[in-house]
Structure formats: structure tokens, C-alpha cells
């Protein structure tokens, strides 16, 4: 059978941290962020969204979450939430609850304003040049 990728887990994962500005949703992150992501899933119900927005801290207290995670949710600090094991498709339930589009929510992670990010995308997006590898600098 054709071998098209590393079959060894460590070899497979080794290069992921070399990608600039990116958190690949690995097993380690999936395990770390389990309850955060399941909390986010609960926002797929209108009743839960209303209850969450009415008292965010009380709603978050119902979940097995660290204070750091609860604070990051309330601050809508999406980069920190990614560091704490959040996945963007799960976190999408949180920014959709805020009636924020994918584009506007994503822009908050880039250090750009919403308008700057929009302009970058209309200009053809972020170039891959220099953004592929930290070690290689290409």
C-alpha cells in the first residue's frame, strides 16, 4: 500500500508547531479543551443562548471550566481560547451568539481592526510568503 504520510504519531505531529500563528487542533488540544468546546456546543439552543447572555458567569459556572477559561470566554479572547484547547468551529457558536460574522470574529485574532482585515482580504488575502514555516522562514 502506498505510504503517503508519516505513520508515526510523533513524526506526524512534529512539524505542526512550526507553522506561524496557527494552532492545529491535535488530540492534546482536543483533550485539554473538551469542556470548553462542549460548553460552546450548548449555545446551539436558543434557550441556552438567552440564559448565557443574561448571566454569562452563572452559565459558565455550570461547566467544568477553569477560571482562566471562564475569563477568556467573557473577554472573547479567541487566541487565548485556542491556546486553552478551543476549536474555532466550536467557538463559532460563541461568536454567533454575539451575532458576529465569521469574518469579523476571525479578524479579532489577527491584531488588525475589522476594517484592516476586510481590506487585506479584498486585496487578495494574507500572502503565504514568509508564513509557511518559522524555522525555515519561507
Amino acid at each position, binding site marked *: 500500500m*502506498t505510504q*503517503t*504520510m*508519516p505513520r508515526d504519531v510523533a513524526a*506526524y*505531529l512534529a*512539524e*505542526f508547531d512550526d*507553522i*506561524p*500563528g*496557527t*494552532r*492545529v*487542533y*491535535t*488530540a492534546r488540544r*482536543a483533550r485539554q479543551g*473538551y469542556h470548553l*468546546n*462542549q460548553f*460552546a*456546543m450548548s*449555545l*446551539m*439552543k*436558543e434557550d441556552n443562548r438567552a440564559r448565557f447572555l443574561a448571566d454569562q458567569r452563572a452559565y459558565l459556572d455550570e461547566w467544568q471550566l477553569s477560571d482562566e477559561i471562564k475569563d477568556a470566554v467573557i473577554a472573547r479572547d*479567541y*487566541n487565548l481560547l*485556542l491556546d486553552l484547547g478551543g*476549536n*474555532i*468551529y*466550536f467557538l*463559532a*457558536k*460563541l*461568536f*454567533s*451568539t454575539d*451575532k458576529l*460574522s465569521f*469574518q469579523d470574529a*476571525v*479578524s479579532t*485574532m*489577527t*491584531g488588525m481592526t475589522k476594517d484592516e*482585515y476586510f481590506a*487585506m*482580504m*479584498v486585496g*487578495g*488575502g*494574507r*500572502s*503565504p510568503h514568509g*508564513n*509557511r*514555516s518559522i524555522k525555515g522562514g519561507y
Partner: protein
Amino acid sequence: MARITHGLSTSHIPAIGAMVDQGRTDEPYWQPIFEGYQWTKDYVAQEKPDVVILVYNDHASAFDMKFIPTFAIGCSDEFRPADEGWGPRPVPPVPGHPDLAWHIAQSCILDEFDITIINEMEVDHGLTVPMDVFFDSKDNKTPAQWPVKVVPVAVNVVTYPPPSGNRCWMLGEAIARAVESYPEDLNVHIWGTGGMSHQLQGPRAGLINKEWDQRFLDLMTSDPQKLRTIEHIEYLRETGSEGIEMVMWLIMRGALQGKVTELHRHYHVPCSNTALGHIVLKNEVAETVVA
């Protein structure tokens, strides 16, 4: 017998569905995005597929972290739109084809491709946006009922590792064998959705790689075997963290076993955070066999 006559691919960007729902498709930003699907709408309306095998990924809608099937097939009579945080999309339920779906599931498992069987599932933008761009009216209105039955094939591209491109290709081959052994005379399309280059997370968000995307589209017909060996790390580095969705296009491509001709292509940057890609491929041998 049933035959796979065409393979279609398209990005499944959620904002496209939102613009359809809000009637904003004529706005200058969106007009060229929808324009690129007009050819395909005419073609699909004339071609009249009986069933679409729709390869997509669930974006944490039907599947949460409790279960993570790598490959899953929807065997229900219908699939209702999921509430992704804005309320369910106002689109009709998607009719299934349980008989063909169960046939594919059984055939794939006997073919040593163990696919998860789903009897109840809601579907998100990953499935409904492709339905819109191919089946909405020319003025981008969702029909009261979808004119086709759908067999959803859901692929995990969220939690790593997703399946390799080669494995996706092989699943496509197994699906093609399953369809060929289904006795009813059906015109079947297979659609691979998602992509192309995009990254929705972190400081590198917004990455777009037009050259890489165009090469991927070219290879669909010029040298498709090369696509099988693209490693995950290449998708991640070159096309952004969500560019990995393109492995799903390889299920579509692997299912086309004959002489494949490109009929139409649409590529546009940007669509929200994403490079929008769309291609229509005709599977020539399937047509000849039927004739």
C-alpha cells in the same frame, strides 16, 4: 444500474448561505461570487441528477466532541438544517435516499471501508450551502423543495488527524464500486465540498494561496494521481489550517474512474475569509457504458 456521471466541487462558505437567506446576493461584493455558479445551475437543471452523494464536513453541529467519526454516511429519509447559533437556516429539509445510502454503507464495509452509519442527523452550512449554489433559482432564491435526493458523507477534518488524501481517494473508489452495484438506474453526482485556501484562526488567519489552489484545480484533470500524495503538513503550510478540507475533493475525484473532462471552473478571492473554488467534472466512461 446506477452510475456516477459527474463530480462537482465547491467551497461551502457559511456567509454564502447567510447572503441567500438575507437576499443580499446582488451586492457588489457578492455578485461575482454568485455569478460564477450560473453556468452550473443551468447545467445541473438540464442534467437532472437523481441523487447527489454529498461529501462535506460537519462543523461541530451534528457531531460534538462526544463522537468523532472519521467517515460517516447519512441513511435518513431527510436531514433538517442545524441551528449553528443564528437559528436554523430557512431552507427546506434535505431529502435522503436511505436505500442507496444503506447499500453504499454495506458495500463499503464489505470492501474493507468501515464507515459509520447515521440514522438521525442535522446538517449545517457544509451541506446546505452547496445545495444553494447549485439548486437555487438564477436570482439566488432557495427552492421550496430540493429537486434531488442526497446521501451525505461526512468527513472529520476538524480533529487531527483527519484521513489522508490517499485514504479519501480510496473511499471515493469504494463508493464508485458501491454505486455500480446498485441495481436501479440512477444518475448519480458526487460532490466534494470545502476549501480552498483559508485559515479561520490565530494571527495567520486570512491566508490565501492562489497559485497553490490553481495548481490543485489543474491537477484534477492533468495529473490527478499527484493529488493523492499531498501530505497534511503541505495543506496546513500552503493553504491555511482550514485548507485541509480539500482532502474531501479527493473522495469526489477518486470516485470518477473514467476519462474526466473539466466543464466549468469558478475561482474568486475573497469570499469572507476564503478562496472560493468550484469545478465541474464529467465522468466520460460512465456515459459510454450507459449508451
